[in-house]
């Protein structure tokens, strides 16, 4: 019954998607009222079908309906509730359903903005419909989540242990998918703009909010994934340059480039063709990411499932690239304008540098990720491209990006006179270098850390300085100071959202540099009741335990963590035996203090002796804080932009500077 409802949902959505393509294509051509009126109902049909499909899958999991092959393979009646819900996207078929649902949601959102005589919007909906046809077509064929098996097993093995080890795993995929799928919107509008020949910046203006939304979710999704890796995998790291991690970073890099270069086009009429190319690239990279994750082409931690959908995704990727860039090559002149860059020393010059670096970053990661596949395909020899390559190539790029991030927002558009720049840069630079000097005098002699600290401090200072100046300017009028401090970011959410994201990136950069350079690892062996020091902390073995947690049996050690005689917490690192897996999985225990994390992994567990690996990472938590701040900045820009529509009159202060110059 549930399988039947689910399949009906998939077919309903597929019908809606096909209808959307047809209606969109007709509405794109001319002024067919019928086609135009059909757009929204078709998008509604797509969304309704997708909701039914997702609902049916969740129902099957929650009701322990093991007649579905998906449930039988990935679920167990003992799986806790949260992970039961998350199992809906833990394996291939289900993750495609989630993708389809998110895509249908975005399509519905776009359909609501399409007005009468809106060829651009109709074309975009047709493109989104095409993408939906692909995904729901997969669900109806090679990756059918509603296959029924007979005989019906009494119970299933449950999801992959690593996926039911931490609540973050329930959060990471939906966030990531919201980001990935969100970038379908700029792609759809870019393709539509090429077809329509939209010479203005309308397509960009209409996608800006979607881009920011997608970017924010993707950022949060990547951070959640990194955090999960840190909390669960027990190696103390958060980013291994694994091909599948890279696959999520690639669209983030080009998406970040797009958000910035879109500003240049809207403000200065430059980079039109480049923006179209970036929108296509970002979407293609999300498809590439899914291909890498789900096809098993690269054995990796994320390739939990291998299936025959690899070739299908590859074909779709090729179609996107050939179709997208084919259209781009023949029609880009319709959307492109004359390039005008008066000086590289200007805000738009900084944006160009930002785009150059982000693209170079993406190209480098792409080459490093795909290289082993190509070598193996060409010669049959397996080679590795690991962290040493990525660190050495991308860290310098990231440092220059950080510099550009600090200086860029200080530069005026068009031409930055040295005097003006000096006026704006000198205080932040002074504070930044002073911070560097303090660190050096305090004994920090790691060049990377000092450099990042200088940059991050300068960026933060520049931001605060600008905030104070803007607030003061506003408070000169009838507004009081506190009200002004609240009004400034409200009146210009785009700028201040961006600044908040920059602050988040700066904080994350500091965390990466510091925790990477000053992490320590010690191995300690403890007898029952025994203690051992690790830095300023003392670890005492309070006992060992064996706990049946339903889906798993945890064998662990209770470790009392103390500092200066005060008990901070009891850590319970464990080795978990899952019912569905022979190989036990070690799970670290992490204590986060104000200055550092204490990260404990069991390396051997005897009846009266326990050996632990104790890692300490200073300020590791700042990485998650910074990452989520960056995502929050993007959301602020989206959210503020909405209300700004009603507050045009408020944009007085914000506009005077540039306004007087134009």
């Amino acid at each position: 019954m549930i399988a039947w409802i689910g399949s009906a949902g998939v077919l309903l959505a597929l019908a809606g998607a096909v209808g959307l393509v047809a209606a969109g294509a007709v509405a794109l051509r001319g002024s067919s009222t019928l086609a135009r009126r059909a757009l929204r109902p078709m998008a509604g049909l797509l969304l309704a079908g997708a909701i039914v499909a997702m609902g049916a899958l969740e129902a099957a999991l929650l009701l322990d309906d093991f007649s579905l092959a998906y449930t039988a393979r990935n679920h167990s009646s003992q799986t806790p509730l949260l992970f039961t819900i998350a199992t809906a996207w833990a394996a291939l078929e289900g993750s495609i359903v989630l993708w389809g649902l998110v895509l249908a949601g975005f399509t519905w959102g776009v359909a609501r903005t399409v007005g009468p005589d809106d060829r651009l919007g109709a074309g975009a909906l047709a493109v989104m419909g095409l993408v939906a046809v692909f995904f729901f077509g997969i669900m109806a064929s090679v990756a059918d989540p509603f296959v029924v098996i007979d005989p019906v097993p009494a119970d299933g093995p449950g999801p992959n242990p690593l996926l039911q080890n931490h609540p973050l795993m329930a959060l990471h995929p939906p966030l990531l998918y919201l980001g990935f799928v969100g970038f379908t919107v700029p792609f759809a509008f870019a393709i539509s703009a090429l077809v329509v020949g939209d010479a203005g910046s309308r397509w960009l203006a209409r996608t800006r909010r979607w881009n920011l939304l997608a970017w924010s979710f993707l950022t949060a999704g990547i951070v959640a994934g990194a955090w999960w890796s840190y909390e669960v995998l027990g190696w103390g790291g958060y980013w291994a340059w694994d091909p599948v991690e890279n696959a999520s970073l690639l669209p983030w890099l080009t998406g970040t480039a797009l958000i910035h270069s879109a500003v240049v086009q809207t403000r200065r009429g430059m980079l039109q063709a480049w923006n179209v190319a970036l929108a296509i690239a970002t979407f293609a990279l999300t498809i590439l990411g899914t291909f890498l994750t789900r096809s098993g082409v690269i054995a990796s931690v994320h390739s939990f499932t291998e299936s025959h959908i690899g070739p299908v995704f590859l074909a779709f990727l090729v179609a996107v690239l050939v179709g997208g860039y084919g259209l781009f090559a023949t029609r880009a002149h319709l959307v492109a304008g004359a390039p005008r860059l008066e000086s590289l020393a200007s805000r738009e010059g900084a944006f160009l540098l930002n785009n150059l670096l982000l693209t170079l970053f993406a190209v480098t990661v792409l080459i490093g990720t795909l290289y082993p596949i190509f070598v193996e395909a060409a010669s049959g020899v397996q080679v590795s491209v690991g962290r040493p390559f990525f660190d050495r190539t991308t860290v310098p790029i990231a440092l220059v990006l950080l510099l550009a991030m600090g200086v860029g927002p200080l530069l005026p558009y068009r031409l930055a006179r040295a005097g003006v720049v000096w006026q704006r840069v000198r205080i932040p630079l002074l504070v930044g270098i002073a911070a560097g000097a303090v660190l050096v005098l305090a004994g920090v002699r790691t060049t990377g850390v000092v450099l990042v600290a200088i940059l991050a401090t300068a960026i933060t200072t520049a931001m605060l300085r600008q905030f104070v100046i803007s607030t003061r300017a506003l408070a000169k009028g009838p507004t009081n100071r506190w009200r002004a401090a609240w009004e400034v970011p409200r009146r210009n959410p785009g700028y201040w959202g961006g600044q908040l994201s920059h602050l988040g990136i700066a904080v994350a950069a500091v965390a990466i540099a510091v925790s990477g350079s000053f992490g320590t690892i010690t191995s300690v062996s403890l007898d029952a009741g025994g203690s051992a020091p690790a830095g300023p902390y003392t670890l005492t073995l309070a006992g060992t335990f064996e706990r049946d947690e339903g889906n798993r049996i945890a064998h662990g050690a209770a470790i009392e963590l103390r500092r200066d005689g005060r008990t901070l917490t009891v850590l319970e690192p464990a080795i978990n035996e899952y019912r569905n897996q022979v190989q036990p999985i070690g799970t670290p225990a992490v204590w986060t203090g104000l200055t550092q994390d204490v990260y404990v992994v069991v390396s051997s567990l005897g009846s009266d002796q326990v050996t632990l690996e104790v890692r300490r990472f200073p300020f590791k938590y700042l990485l998650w804080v910074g990452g989520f701040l960056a995502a929050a900045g993007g959301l602020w820009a989206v959210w503020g932009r909405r209300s700004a529509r009603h507050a045009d009159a408020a944009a007085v202060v914000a506009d005077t500077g540039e306004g007087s110059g134009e």
Partner: protein
Amino acid sequence: MSDRLTGRLIAVAIAALLGVVVVGLASAPPAEPDRAHALAERLRCPTCDSVSVAESPSETARAMRQTIEEQVADGRSDEDIIGYFVARYGEWVLHDPPVGGRTLLVWVLPPLALIPGVLAILRRRRQLPAADVSDEVRAAVAAELARCADEAEWSDAEWSPGRSPRADAGEL
């Protein structure tokens, strides 16, 4: 205190502090080279995904770290130790792709990708249609712009709807 003087004082302070930073970093005692760790970072853990022998908490990686330490203690060269593992696991075990052989291109291609980008930006700059505006006019306008911008401080309006970018981009 005039702005000029303030600026000079700040410049001096920056230079002095920069001196502290540079001298401090340059005079740092060279870090103890941990050969075994450095070697472990160059090898890929055979039973994990994308993690080096140095990072992995797995049994295999622990055993390999042990082997590396023993060989370092025996005085074997880096090449010998790396070669020892390549002989056992194949080229795949090289986490750090060598600059040469099959993995030469992975190092060469990224810098090459920079060239078209830089060229595109430089070309954009050269295509400036500025011939009919004299330098004095330009400088005067720029100065005036800067003065205005300074008075209101610079704008943080990076984008405002309803304003045509094409109109903005018009002649100076």
